[in-house]
């Protein structure tokens, strides 16, 4: 079966042509998904409250993530390899400034320029060797090391990406650590195939920072906190030994919890949950 992943179809500068780029300004589903991812990434970025910062948007595309940054009062500079996508961004009159460039050749910015960097669904493109002389590991290292340079000390970089294999995750994190970053992977809704989202959360020097925890529970529910949570607790399953009796109240509650962790729509628990029905005549 042919692969559906866009990285396998063509290099990014070719794949994101006028037609593909137009989707990013018209398709409301794509816009919705990208906006949500950007909001979460910016939340993980943990920029100082009530201050407007200068943020680098890596693989900014049509500027959907940038618009979220603008709404929060930040200035941004976007970098992308596809000129068609940048043209769309220009048409949408985004507030940030745009630069055409290949992140695998390094970031063309001065040291300590940015308060933070975000990147939505771009990093996986670096894992491909699109030209015969491309070496993904070297390109990743080049990217991370130059990015480290252009961030202010203690700044964060948050990458949302779609890794194809666990090996890709290893390759990416290894090169990031080699370049001097600390931090690691934050996974939202880890139990769900559909709602699962990976964020690589990196810190450029400065004080030791605690890695934020990923989101769990119902996707898009009201209870999802809007602030990144920082806690040391680890969730262990209670009653690991001995499963509860089938069809019992605890069994049903556990089952509902599992579904909720997968991000499915589950009715809230009430006193009626798992209550026996009256006997029919």
């Amino acid at each position, binding site marked *: 079966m042919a692969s559906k992943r866009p990285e396998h179809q063509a290099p990014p500068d070719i794949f994101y042509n006028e037609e593909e780029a137009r989707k990013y300004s018209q398709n409301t589903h794509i816009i919705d998904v990208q906006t949500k991812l950007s909001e979460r990434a910016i939340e993980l970025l943990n920029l100082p409250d009530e*201050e*407007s*910062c*200068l943020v680098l948007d890596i693989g900014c595309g049509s500027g959907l993530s940038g618009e979220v940054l603008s709404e929060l*009062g930040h*200035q941004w*500079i976007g970098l992308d*390899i596809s*000129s068609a996508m*940048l*043209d769309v961004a*220009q048409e949408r009159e985004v*507030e940030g*400034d*745009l*630069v*055409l*460039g*290949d992140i695998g*050749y*390094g*970031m*063309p*910015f*001065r040291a*300590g*320029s*940015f308060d933070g960097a975000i990147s939505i669904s771009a990093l996986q493109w670096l894992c491909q060797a699109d*030209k015969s*002389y491309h070496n993904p590991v070297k390109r990743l290292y080049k990217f991370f090391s*130059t990015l480290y340079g*252009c961030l*202010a000390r203690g700044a964060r970089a948050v990458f949302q990406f779609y890794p194809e294999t666990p090996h890709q995750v290893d390759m990416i994190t290894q090169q990031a650590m080699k370049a001097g970053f600390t931090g690691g992977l934050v996974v939202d809704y880890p139990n769900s195939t559909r709602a699962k989202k990976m964020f690589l959360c990196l810190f450029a020097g400065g004080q030791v920072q605690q890695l934020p925890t990923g989101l769990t529970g119902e996707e898009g529910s009201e209870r999802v906190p809007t602030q990144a949570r920082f806690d040391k607790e680890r969730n262990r399953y209670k009653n690991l030994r001995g499963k509860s009796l089938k069809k019992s109240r605890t069994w049903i509650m556990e089952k509902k919890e599992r579904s909720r962790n997968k991000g499915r729509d589950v009715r809230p628990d009430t006193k009626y949950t798992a209550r026996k029905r009256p006997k029919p005549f």
Partner: protein
Amino acid sequence: MKLITHNMLTSNILKGVTKGFPLKIKADKVDNVSVDYNRDFITRIIPRIEYDALRAAVNDLGLNESLPETMPEAVQQDDEFLKTMHKVLLEYEVEEGELICPETGRKFPISKGIPNMLLQETEVS
């Protein structure tokens, strides 16, 4: 391309270039856009601006802006200076032209307001 971006851009991704800053601007078309004045952002970003490079850029573009020769000491209180900085950094857009690497003379074209920093494989450091 705004001048704030120019102030951050370098050509040190080129092979053999160590600093690559500041890039010289040859502008064919400069636009003026209006951006909301955000005092906090300007005071936050000023320590990171290479002031001499900014003055050189203003000179390259031939803008009629009066930037003092050195940055005033009490930047926070100097509202007039902050407003000028805001205007220079955010309100001028270089639409067409090119950026020139100070060390190698390599030209990076700017078209439709977007500087093209793409390289050939042979130029990569």
